[in-house]
């Protein structure tokens, strides 16, 4: 295959400790190599920044609830459309873009890997069909397990090994990548229209608690040696004072860290970082959460930043979405999934003038700025919940420039500005740290050994940004930062140039990453025998039809993991 030589760029590759060094990158046959022949195509990256392709760890891009969002909001698409070209299919944006547009827009921004963080196992075939229609980027999906009937029953009966075998079987069956937990126990209570408000409250009929569910799945994650820690959307999302629940959840798995590594990834913490007791006195719980993270090695988070726009909220947190509907009186989609989970979709507009929204905006940034170790922070907007992923350049600018933050601070609700610590925070992220939180740390957390870095052997996924690193003062020139991260000079995927100066010049089909977990055969067999009858009783589909064959995935990348049992 073709060879490329990226010449003279300023390279940022934190996983290999490269911090703005001027160096060449060599690509051959879709991989980073040590050298190339004279026949190689040369990209002159002088005065440009070269980074590994972006790795987005949490973005709602595919599946049943995302599509429900698309159908719910024709008005979201009307003014933001993409005309077809020789290379690209047509499509629409804005906050719930169509599949082709999703892939192209991510690629234009220099992202090359994106994970769908919440797929209901029963409907995951739908997720895979959509992922198949998202061009260029590599992808994967996390399986929603925090309200799963079988898991709660195994937990009640204390059958840890058998449950581990079940989770292994399930991830394999639906071609999932990680264990996702959303409002553990709470979404099941919502199956009856009820809610759960603290970690020790029992789930109706199943009589296990959220804390037990989180610990249980964390143990199973360890047993199965899964590449990514449990990915948790904590209870009480969106409730004033919920930062306490967040810290309690983090603390609940402190003793389960393996080799000092993260035992939990808490997601879109902004939504779970509220202090105060009501909407009137809502405040930021970021300082407390950041303090906990700074003192504890076993936690990593993604921020879920609000970007002040009209957007669409969508999560598997059915009860929270109902509360949001009650608050906003917007249109509301709810979709409970038998024996497993739920989902909700509600359009939402974040306004600078709104006290609560302004505090929310502050919380996300405070989290990133107050946590000292950037390896524990991943940059997300929980697309589209906090804002569309196309707003990432705004977030980068806010993190890198106090001036950028001040400009926005001067526009937000004045009471909120007074209430936040943010105005007093001077810290500014460096490009190196941005590279960490948008690609290096995320790839590492996901256990993707060939992504997020440019060492020899890595996938040749490269983003070249129009940023003259040496002459740049990001603090002052935040507008240049925004512009540069909006569209790359070049995006390279698997060694092929796919985007150039905001235009897609080649399309391709990305790979789907999934985990092939292996447990001992006898444990597997015994688990399946016990599962069959209950499966028929709880579900309305046959077990055989629940399973997705590898051939169903257009381009499969199987990650083998060996479990402890």
């Amino acid at each position, binding site marked *: 295959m073709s060879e490329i030589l990226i010449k003279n760029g300023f390279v940022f590759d934190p996983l290999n400790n490269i911090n703005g060094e001027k160096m060449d990158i060599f690509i051959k046959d879709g991989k980073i190599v040590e050298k190339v022949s004279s026949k190689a195509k040369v990209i002159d990256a002088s005065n440009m920044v070269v980074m590994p392709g972006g790795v987005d760890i949490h973005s709602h891009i*595919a599946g*049943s609830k*995302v*599509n*429900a969002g*698309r*159908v*719910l*909001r*024709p008005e979201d*698409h009307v003014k933001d*459309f*993409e*005309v*077809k070209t020789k290379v690209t*299919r*047509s*499509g*629409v944006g804005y906050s*719930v*873009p*169509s*599949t*082709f547009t999703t892939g192209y827009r991510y690629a234009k921004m220099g992202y090359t890997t994106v994970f769908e963080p919440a797929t209901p196992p*029963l*409907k995951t*075939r*739908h997720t895979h*069909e*959509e992922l198949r*229609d998202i061009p260029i980027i590599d992808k994967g999906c996390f399986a929603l397990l925090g309200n799963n*009937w079988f898991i709660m029953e195994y937990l009640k009966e204390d059958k840890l090994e058998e449950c581990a075998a079940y989770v292994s079987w399930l991830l394999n069956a639906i071609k999932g990548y990680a264990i996702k937990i959303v409002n553990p126990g709470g979404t099941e209570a919502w*199956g*009856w*229209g009820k809610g759960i408000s603290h970690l020790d409250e029992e789930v109706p*009929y199943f009589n296990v608690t959220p804390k037990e569910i989180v610990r249980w799945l964390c143990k199973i994650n360890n047993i199965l040696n899964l590449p990514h820690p449990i990915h948790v959307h904590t209870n009480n999302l969106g409730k004033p004072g919920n930062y306490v629940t967040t810290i309690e959840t983090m603390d609940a798995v402190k003793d389960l860290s393996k080799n000092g590594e993260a035992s939990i990834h808490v997601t879109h913490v902004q939504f779970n970082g509220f202090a105060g007791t009501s909407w009137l006195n809502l405040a930021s719980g970021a300082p407390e959460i950041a303090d906990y993270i700074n003192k504890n090695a076993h936690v990593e988070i993604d921020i879920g930043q609000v970007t002040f726009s009209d957007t669409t909220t969508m999560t598997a947190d059915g009860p929270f979405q*109902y509360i949001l*509907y009650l608050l906003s009186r917007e*249109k*509301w*989609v*709810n*979709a*409970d*999934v*038998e*024996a497993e989970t*739920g989902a909700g*979709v*509600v359009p939402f507009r974040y306004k600078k003038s709104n006290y609560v929204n302004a505090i929310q905006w502050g919380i996300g940034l405070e989290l990133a700025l107050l946590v000292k170790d950037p390896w524990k922070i991943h940059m997300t907007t929980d697309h589209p919940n906090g804002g569309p992923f196309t707003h990432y350049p705004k977030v980068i600018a806010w993190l890198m420039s106090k001036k950028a933050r001040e400009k926005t601070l001067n526009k937000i609700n004045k009471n909120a500005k007074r209430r936040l610590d943010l105005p007093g925070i001077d810290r500014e992220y460096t490009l190196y740290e941005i590279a960490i939180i948008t690609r290096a740390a995320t790839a590492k957390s996901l256990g993707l050994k060939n992504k997020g870095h440019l060492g020899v052997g890595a996938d040749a996924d490269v983003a070249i940004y129009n940023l003259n690193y040496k002459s740049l003062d990001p603090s002052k020139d935040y507008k240049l930062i925004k512009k540069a991260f909006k569209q790359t000079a070049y995006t390279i995927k698997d060694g092929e140039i796919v985007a150039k100066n905001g235009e897609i010049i080649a399309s391709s089909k990305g790979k789907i990453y999934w985990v092939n977990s292996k447990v001992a055969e006898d444990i597997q067999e015994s688990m399946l025998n016990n599962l069959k009858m209950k499966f028929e*009783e*709880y*579900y*309305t*589909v*046959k077990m*055989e*039809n629940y399973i*997705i064959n590898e051939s*169903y995935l257009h381009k499969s990348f199987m990650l083998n993991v060996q479990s402890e049992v």
Partner: protein
Amino acid sequence: MEKIINNVVCTVCGCCCDDLEVKVKDGKIVEVKNACAVSLSKFQNYNGKERIVKPLIKENGEFKECDLKEAIEKASKILAEAKYPLIYGLSLTSTEAIGKAVELAEALGGVIDNTTSVCHGPSLIGVHDVGLVTCTLGEVKNRADLIIYWGSNPIFSHPRHLTRYTVFSRGKFRRERGERKLVVVDVRKTATAKLADIFIQVTPNQDYELISALRMAVKGEEIYLNEVAGVPTSKIEELADLMISCEFGILFFGLGLTMSLGKSRNIDAALSLVRDLNERTKFLIMPMRGHYNVTGANEVIAWQTGYPFAVDFSQGYPRYNPGETTTIELLTRGECDAALIVGSDPIAHFPVSAVKHLMKIPVITIDPHRSATTLISTVVIPTVITGIEAEGTVYRMDGVPLECKKLVEPPLGLKSDEEIINEILVNVKKLKE
């Protein structure tokens, strides 16, 4: 040689029952277990005398047999030369095929629409305005103690619905029939109404009024009339009480609401009623999607274009406006100058005003069977039958995706919808260059 294929997904109605047992002997289906009467009829008759085995091109009013290549070339030419072609049907095939049809519509700069237009289109229009509070069918099986069918007669349209998913099913929390209540609202005492604990006979075209009265009662407001839509107020209040006091209620609705006066407004009202009920108890709603993959068609068209049906590509990007880009209006206004009909029989199912125009323009039909539409077509391309002779992904009425199996080999020479549409696409792209 005899074999039994288990867990077969039925490809008739929106139930998508996946527990069929098919016995195949010497390459032919000889027995099917667990199938309802309509499903059985499909398995028994799909290869009958109405089956088309050779492609046909109409010349001078007469059909001539031809080979597939010729038929596809002619079809491609007709479509490529058209200014505003329509692709319609698509609810009786796999999402893989429908996705290809979207690509074809985009390449042609035409319109893609499916049977939703004349079925639950109004429901989707209602969803755009209100949203949708729903669940998968297993939630109903496991939890529901109140089931309402409104303007829907599942005993006829979805024969196993009650047994597999609702009143006669056995769930984790509801084991016996006696633990559930069945209410039917309809203009006639249908076969389903005969099984109901409560039957409410509503005056035709007054569902909107009845739903509005229910909303008032649910909100505790007083209805000042003695009767609404032919139903005594006392009965309306009784139903409202039943709805508020249940633990888990579900409202299934059908074409009785979408096709009567009010159309999408009826659905708007029903969706709002259920949404309001959630302030009192757990209540959900679900449209009774008719064909086995009409739901899938909406899903794939929506994820590829942003809109669920009636998508126009004439400007090079997806545009959607029911009433403007929906098939009935397009045909009645005489706007389309060619049509590709996939697995549907609009000539048999559309009002005369639309049929008239469809009979004037060149029509290409892809279908396994003769129909009113194949009769008037210029090109007829026979195809294999999804779920029997070809596998493919389909979506149940509640959005649960299933893969249907290939059970037997198709007659020689026949290709699948996906393959045929793809070949037309390749040709069209060449012609348009």
